[in-house]
């Protein structure tokens, strides 16, 4: 008798407990990459530099002269992008780098970073 009641409990429970349909999160839209022209102008040379996006280095180098330029592919959503910029001047002293970002035929957007022997910051480009 007990076994029969127990056997009945399982199907009965399935009628009384609400079943939540699994919620499917919409797939996060990924921003397509686009060709971006980067230019760094430094007030002093030689200098070393690196530019990172989302924790990955997209451009780094050491240059005896200024400016330096490179084309990279980056996803740029309408909210803009953050680029982490590091620069070092072995000669020391106060110096600055200006990073210009140009997307397609758009006007370049530039940000400047000052430092004493070295500079490091996250620059936002809209």
């Amino acid at each position, binding site marked *: 008798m007990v076994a029969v009641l127990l056997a009945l409990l399982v199907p009965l429970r399935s009628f009384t407990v609400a079943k*939540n349909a*699994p*919620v*499917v*999160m*919409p*797939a*996060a*839209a990924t*921003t397509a990459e686009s060709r971006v022209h980067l230019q760094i102008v430094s007030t002093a040379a030689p200098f070393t530099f690196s530019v*990172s996006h*989302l*924790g990955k280095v997209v451009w780094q180098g050491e240059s005896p002269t200024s400016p330096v330029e490179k084309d990279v592919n980056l*996803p740029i*959503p*309408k*909210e*803009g*992008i*953050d*680029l*982490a910029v590091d620069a070092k001047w072995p000669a020391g002293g106060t110096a600055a780098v200006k990073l210009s970002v140009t997307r397609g035929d758009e006007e370049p957007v530039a940000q400047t970073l000052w430092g004493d022997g070295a500079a*490091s*910051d*996250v620059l*936002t480009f809209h």
Partner: protein
Amino acid sequence: MKTFLPALAAIGLALGTAGAADKVKVVSFSTILTEIAEQVGGGAVNVISLVGPGVDPHEYQPTPGDLKQLAGARLILASGKHIEHYLDKLQASAGGDAVLVKVGDLMPSLKMTAEENSNTVVEDPHWWNSVPNVERATKIVRDALITVAPSDKDVFTTNAAAYLTKLAALNQWIKQEVALLPRDKRELVTSHDAFQYFARDYGFKIYAIEGISTEQEASTKQVNDLIDTIKKAGVKAVFLEDTLNPKVSTEITRETGAKIGGTLYADGLGVGADSYDAMQRHNVTTIVEALK
């Protein structure tokens, strides 16, 4: 040795290590302001914190015992921006000559719609969730301490400069960490609307379950609207707060498929975040890990 002891005492005085009776008594109604006052005041101040870690400042009401603590205070520090509704009454009943500084009132406000009346604009009181605002607060507290104890000006100036250097490093660290998230993924669902200053500084969009105060719960319609918004936006995580009930947040995750991203310190220091630096590092690490 006889000549050494007076020399040591003289050095102690010069460094501002006054005895308890000689210290400037400061009473604070904010965990963040308590830390700032201790950091800037150093050995020259005795800071009494009436709102302790983990206490919701929106709900806090001073007790008769708290009123007694105000006796002899030379400086009272409040967050301002109307978060301490009781303050004017409290100062009047406490009497005394203490200087009251509503620190938040001395910095620019973000304006928000009042929960009880959508036609009314109010000031967002959560200025401490912006490191640049805490830098402003440090300068305000430094200047207030110099006003009440001008003889310790050098101590306050030196200590404030050291604390400001730490805050600048913290701000830099936050910028580096947040830069790991694409700007179009910086969406925060929080228990109450306490992170607008953070959002402004670091490029986030906020969806809050409750308004700027924790005193009024969200209506069913507000929760349903938020669920729709979260589904449409594909927000990945909902964050809890250390001083609030997680019930509604948990329900929202069930309805939307978003995950619980962790618990944030929204209204000040708490258990497990005993300094402003620890509070911000915890919040930022939790947010970045959940949204990555």
